[in-house]
């Protein structure tokens, strides 16, 4: 499909901005959804000047439980909805402070999933559309270094798989995106191996291609599919002894 309109949920992030630019480049009208939407004026101007597209901003909070009201308030249901919201958090802090753990789980799973349920019902009724969820390779196997975040992403990955299955016969596609490392504000200050680290623009390109070609699950850099296959294949009796 060639999308005519896209809604970016979590548009202020580096990946959100890259996705918005890539779709705008193809001529799609863009709706940026984020907290403090009134502060997105410069981003809207940038999209309008660069790509001569229609660009609007709407107020959005993934964890406010108001998904039905949010979609009812949109002037039209977009062709594509991209859920970019996520929160890496800090594993040690999450283990010490359950409120912090809850915030990570809500921002990566329950919040985004509820919003996508609301989008999915409307797209199913219409009989067309595409839903994109940014999940994570961290959800492919729980590891001691980030399992609060990883388990929420695992839930989100399973959710997207089920949603894809549910919507298949209704003409709505679902793309699961596992970016691997991405050089963003979320990962600034981490020492990331360059060969495994994608730029936000690569993620934008990969998502656009996946949507137009109807892909199901993508790893932005293909090497990650291999890495995660190896990590998943380690027997649990061995895995539990590793420091990963």
């Amino acid at each position: 499909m060639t999308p005519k309109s896209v809604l970016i949920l979590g548009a202020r992030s580096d990946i959100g901005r890259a996705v918005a630019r890539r779709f705008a480049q193809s001529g799609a009208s863009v709706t940026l959804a984020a907290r403090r939407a009134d502060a997105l004026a410069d981003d809207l101007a940038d999209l309008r000047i660069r790509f001569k597209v229609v660009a609007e901003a709407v107020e959005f909070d993934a964890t406010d439980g108001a998904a039905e009201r949010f979609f009812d308030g949109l002037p039209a249901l977009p062709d594509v909805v991209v859920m970019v919201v996520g929160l890496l958090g800090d594993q040690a802090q999450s283990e010490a402070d359950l409120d912090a753990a809850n915030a990570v789980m809500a921002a990566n799973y329950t919040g985004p999933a509820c919003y996508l349920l609301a989008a999915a019902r409307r797209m199913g009724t219409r009989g067309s559309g595409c839903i994109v969820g940014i999940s994570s390779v961290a959800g492919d196997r729980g590891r001691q270094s980030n399992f609060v975040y990883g388990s929420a992403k695992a839930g989100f990955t399973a959710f997207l798989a089920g949603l894809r299955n549910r919507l298949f016969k209704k003409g709505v596609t679902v793309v699961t995106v596992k970016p691997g490392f991405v050089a963003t504000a979320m990962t600034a200050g981490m020492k990331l191996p360059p060969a495994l680290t994608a730029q936000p623009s690569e993620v934008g390109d990969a998502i656009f291609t996946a949507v137009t070609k109807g892909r199901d699950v993508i790893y932005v850099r293909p090497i990650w599919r291999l890495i995660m296959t190896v990590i998943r294949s380690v027997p649990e009796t061995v895995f539990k002894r590793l420091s990963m």
Partner: protein
Amino acid sequence: MSEPDRTRVPLTGWGRYPRRDCEVAAPTDPAAAAVARAPARPLIARGNGRSYGDASFGPGLTVDMRRLGRLIAFDEATGELTCEAGALLSEIVAVFTPRGWFPPVTPGTKFVTVGGMVASDVHGKNHHGAGSFCDHVLSARLALGDGTILTCSRAENADLFAATCGGMGLTGTLLTVTFRLIPVRSSKILQETVRAPDLATAIDIFESGSARTYSVAWIDCLASGAHLGRSVIIFGEHAAPQDLDPSEQATPFARPSPRGKRVPVDFPTVALNRLSVSLFNQVYYRLQKPGRKVVDIDPYFYPLDAIQDWNRIYGRHGFVQYQCVLPLETSRDGLTALLTEIARVGQASFLAVLKRLGHESFGHLSFPRAGYTLALDFPANPETFALLDRLDRIVTEAGGRLYLAKDARMRAPMLRAGYPRLEQFNAVRRRYGLDGRFRSALSDRLEI
């Protein structure tokens, strides 16, 4: 506003010499860039790291501006563009050339940020007619490091504007810049190539070509004796649709598909020697057939941008670029002295460019002035530094100066001799409370 994330990374300029471990912040929000709350730490903004030496990083917090590169306003009638300082010139060229607008001044690479273009007050092949980039800047918004944001222009905070244009980022963090693009009728350049067998001829050709829009000479620094200053001079004009091949006239703004090459590894340091460069220069001189042809803007303005990471050809120790300008009245003798010394030593300079500059810019530390500028690359090694010290004396005696955006090794006395308005610059920094607050490795080295 939360503080931007920080990390310590080794930084260099494009020459990869010198190198320094720096604390870096990469704000995504202009408010964070404006404040960068580090009361005791000096600040310096960094764009795309294309200045050659040590201007783009500092002893305190280095603020990476590349996440702040939005285009904020564009007037289709006048070509007036406002963008954030981190916007890349390459993106501006890609967006606006197809619509018939082009940067008023462009340096030899398009991988620079607009903030960097202001801080270095960059010039291009049209300096003799169009002046430097800041001649086309209408206003800029500048964060002074204490939360204050000032707009400066020729009318508003004019002293701060004059210090900021060419001020190497030492007068605050540029947030947005407003400048005017120029209208063009195609994305092509009508190029004319002329050979000059020696320096005197090259200068005569420049002087008689002052009405041409663009002019630059590639110069063979290893040629000596009667061939001293042997050059290929390349003129250019923006092409009109009727100048193009008939098959292209209907789509004058069409661009060739990008084809990038990349230098995948550091070359061994012996790869560029007197023999290989001399051979290259002789072949290049003969390959540049005199005459006219139509070329795309990319090969005309940005030939080296086609090779990603070309700075790796000098090997892992990096290289230094030496760019001086000599006043018009001392240019002939001074250039002869410089080229004689370079040819005598036989240090291989792969890239050597000669260009006539027009008038002196209004920026206190702007590089251009009426005269001739010579730019050379050398591998960073002790022989080079000894040679450059000798070249420094020739430049200073001729009343010339070095380009701060290229410099990695000059010392403070030469700066003071070459930049008589340094005192005015320092006075503005004191007036606005910027001295000590904004510092780079360059400003520390040059005692600015």
